[in-house]
């Protein structure tokens, strides 16, 4: 029950990202996608990575696999320690051995994530063949069929092609590929965004059950706070390539500190107060090609002062593994107004 | 009320297309190859137009000085002279008039036939579409060059017939492209809106659908001018294109072929002229396509 008492440092660390900086160098300028992200993830824990589109969530996730498309993507700085070994310093051979076996990824759009000209069985078996030396093709296909059964698809459909499956079924296949080599870390990049609402719950259930069964750690990338509440132990809120708040699920939901996190909650429809208008965060995500001297959220922040525009706030500890990057807390009496109705 | 929204949509649509054109031009300018191609093409156009004023057709272009025959390139005749003592440089420059006009007129013919049939097929659908597309299939099934040969030999050898033949051969691709373009635009909301307020089909096609499906047609047209120049020069090379003694590049190459062993320069320059013209058009066409659809360039 006391999830939040479990400090991350107590459990064995599986992933430790230190000061990651990723740029995309395009014709139209440099896009600063990730600007110094640091994260840790404990064994068998689930971390939620929350933020708007363009906040750098997917880029962070792809960096863990060292799969940033290059060009245009360049990892400028940082360390990504996976079981203590820096992914960014691995050789191509080590990376290939790591991908799919230590870390697996589930992509956002199951419609495009599967190769249209191979059968789903072949695609699952490929991972098994790659990471199990000496296994025969036949054996791999048999295990691929078993993996399909695990995600609730009859093994007999292994010989079918992706276009013969529905979206939800395809995502099950993608999950089967991801889990086929029993990875230590599973990264799920908005795994349910492209699916119907009714299918979303099914997929989440499958993922949670399997995560328990396979004792896998997970990073769940999403912009849906409902999913976060359902599956995550810790939450990192990202804004404009930075983590602005990090803490346990309870810290984030009950003891919200950052104005942006507050804004995310405020913009949710409230069933108890249906008369109240939604309170969207005003303004737009900043242009990622422009480097701002101050806090990236300041232009949209209702607490912003002149000081916010001067320097980028550092993450500060608010106790018990709860961190926030907001200079308003220089004032010890500062409190955000979460849940209050805003006039105008 | 409905009229008003329609008008608003209309202006918005125009504003959109204007800014899109600006964006396309901005991306086009960034492409060095495209700018070089455009410059080369403009120079060739200027040469072609001015050649008519600078050179006398009867004495300098088709009439030669027999005492000067088969001279290798020199300061006096940079590209040398041919078997009749005509300056090849003058003939190559004058030849641009034929190649460019055949290329452009052939594509214009293809555009008129292809776009009207394609737009009709895409807009009307049903049996009309089926008939048009099946006929198009037939034209595509016949190899282009053979079809052009057949048409020219049926109608008789003349520059105009060459244009028509090459134009007819190119029109099938415009039918397909404009039909596809119309189909994608047809179902857009503003077209439905125009239909809902009762604007008639003809008006709908010409004021709403075509302007919005222009991009792929323009790209294809640019590339097709180059292809048509090659087709036309091929037919001339085979002796059924622009009639002699006009200095058409393909015909010049055909004439030079007899002297290839000893006077190879005669087969060099007209071919280079064709290649340069077509390269410039392809550079422009490719850049236009990339500028309109920047997905591939990133």
């Amino acid at each position, binding site marked *: 029950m006391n999830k939040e008492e479990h400090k991350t440092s107590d459990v064995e660390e599986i992933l430790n990202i230190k000061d990651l900086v990723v740029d995309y160098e395009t014709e139209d300028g440099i896009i600063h996608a990730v600007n110094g992200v640091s994260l840790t993830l404990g064994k068998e824990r689930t971390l939620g990575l929350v933020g708007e589109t363009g906040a750098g969530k997917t880029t962070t996730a792809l960096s863990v*696999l060292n799969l940033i498309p290059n060009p245009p993507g360049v990892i400028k700085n940082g360390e990504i320690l996976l079981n203590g070994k820096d992914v960014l310093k691995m050789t191509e051979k080590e990376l290939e051995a790591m991908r799919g076996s230590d870390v697996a990824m589930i992509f956002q759009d199951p419609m495009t994530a599967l190769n249209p000209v191979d059968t789903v069985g072949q695609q699952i078996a490929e991972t098994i063949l790659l990471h199990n030396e000496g296994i025969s093709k036949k054996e791999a296909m048999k295990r691929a069929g078993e993996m399909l059964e695990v995600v609730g698809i009859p093994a007999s459909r292994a010989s079918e092609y992706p276009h013969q499956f529905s979206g939800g079924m395809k995502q099950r296949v993608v999950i089967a590929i991801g889990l086929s080599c029993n990875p230590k870390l599973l990264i799920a990049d908005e795994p349910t965004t492209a699916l119907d609402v009714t299918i979303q719950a099914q997929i989440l259930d499958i993922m949670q059950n399997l995560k328990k069964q396979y004792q896998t750690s997970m990073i769940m990338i999403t912009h849906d706070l409902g999913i976060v509440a359902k599956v995550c132990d810790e939450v990192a809120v990202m804004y404009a390539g930075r983590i602005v708040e990090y803490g346990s699920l309870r810290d984030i939901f009950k003891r919200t500190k950052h104005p942006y996190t507050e804004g995310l909650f405020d913009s949710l429809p409230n069933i108890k107060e249906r008369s109240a208008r939604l309170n969207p965060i005003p303004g737009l995500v900043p242009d990622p090609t422009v480097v701002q001297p101050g806090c990236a959220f300041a232009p949209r922040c209702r607490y912003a002062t002149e000081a916010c525009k001067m320097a980028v706030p550092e993450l500060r500890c608010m106790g018990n593994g709860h961190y926030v990057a907001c200079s308003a807390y220089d004032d010890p009496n500062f409190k955000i107004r979460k849940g209050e109705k805003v006039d105008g | 009320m409905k009229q008003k929204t329609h008008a608003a949509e209309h202006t918005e649509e125009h504003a959109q297309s204007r800014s899109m054109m600006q964006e396309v031009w901005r991306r086009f300018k960034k492409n060095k190859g495209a700018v070089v191609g455009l410059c080369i093409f403009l120079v060739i156009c200027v040469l072609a137009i001015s050649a008519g004023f600078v050179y006398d057709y009867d004495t300098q272009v088709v009439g030669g000085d027999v005492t000067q025959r088969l001279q290798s390139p020199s300061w006096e005749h940079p590209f040398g002279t041919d078997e009749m003592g005509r300056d090849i440089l003058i003939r190559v420059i004058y030849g641009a008039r034929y190649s460019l006009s055949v290329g452009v007129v052939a594509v214009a013919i293809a555009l008129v036939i292809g776009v009207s049939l394609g737009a009709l097929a895409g807009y009307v659908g049903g049996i009309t579409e089926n008939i048009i597309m099946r006929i198009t299939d037939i034209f595509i099934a016949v190899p282009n060059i053979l079809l052009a040969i057949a048409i020219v030999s049926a109608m008789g050898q003349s520059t105009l017939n060459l244009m028509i033949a090459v134009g007819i051969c190119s029109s099938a691709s415009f039918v397909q492209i404009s039909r596809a373009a119309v189909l994608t635009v047809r179902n857009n909301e503003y077209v439905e809106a125009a239909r809902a307020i009762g604007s008639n089909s003809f008006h709908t096609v010409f004021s709403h659908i075509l302007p919005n499906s222009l991009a792929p047609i323009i790209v294809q047209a640019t590339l097709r001018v180059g292809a048509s120049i090659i087709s036309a020069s091929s037919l001339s090379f085979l002796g059924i294109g622009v009639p002699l003694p006009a200095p058409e590049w393909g015909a010049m190459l055909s004439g030079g072929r007899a002297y290839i062993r000893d006077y190879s320069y005669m087969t060099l320059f007209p071919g280079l002229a064709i290649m340069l013209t077509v390269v410039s058009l392809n550079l422009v066409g490719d850049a236009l396509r990339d500028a309109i659809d920047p997905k591939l360039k990133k």
Partner: protein
Amino acid sequence: MYKYILKRLVLLIPVIIGVSLLVFSIMDIAEGDPVYQIVSETASEEVIEATREAYGLNDPFLVRYARYMINLCKGSMGTSYITKQDVFKTYMELLPNTVKLSLLAVVIAIIVSIPLGINAAIHQNTWADTGSMFTSLLFVSMPQFWLGLLLMLAFALKLGWFPSGGNEDGLKSLILPAFTVGIGLAALMTRTTRSSMLETIRQDYITTAKAKGVSNKNAIYHHAFKNALIPIVTVGGMQLAQVLGGSVLAETVFSYPGVGRLIVQSIERRDIPMVTGALILTTIIVSVVNLATDIVYAFIDPRIKSQYARK
């Protein structure tokens, strides 16, 4: 699948009828009054009329066309005005030469274009890419007959490695015409391969494959190429079809006795039955090759295969 092939073969019939009707009517216009090909121009009215009646020249166009097609099915397409040879037989004697030329050209094109195109795509915007794109742009923009003349000049007249024409030297005399056709084709297919590969290596399933631990090389050559092959085969097949009919120029430049040169020579001699017959036969062959391409296409792309398997 067999059903699909059968269905496509049936669908081919109207195309062949349409194509032959098109060619037949074009050549019908070209012919002028064909009666003078049979009787002399000074013949009396009665003789002309009798000949017309005897040869069925007074019949309506469609009747004449139908008669022509029925004869075609029997392998008879009339005799040449000039050589007095059977058109069908003459064509079939020359066809193997053109088929050899076209196949060799396509093999050259595939061997050159696929590695070049893939290499350009995976090294996009580097010198390797720019260089091969510029080279292929030059060759795409070059008229085939001019390339043929240049090859002849360099390799036949100056270096003397290959004969400058005819087909007396077997494979040796096939090389230059085949390269003339093949180089232009290779340039075109390099561009297709590159853009097709660029499209597929950006697809999500390539990232999926890499995330599974598939090596870069394997992701490109297995996952991406198998998908990129679909448009490449389409263009390749279309080109093979065009080459079969369009090797006219290479055949003319090298005086290579193929069906293309037969058509050009027959046009020069106003040998109408020969031209009509050769054009119709060529387009039938082209249509069959196009069909074969579509069938190969269905084998590569399971989406199309299952679409037809269900029907």
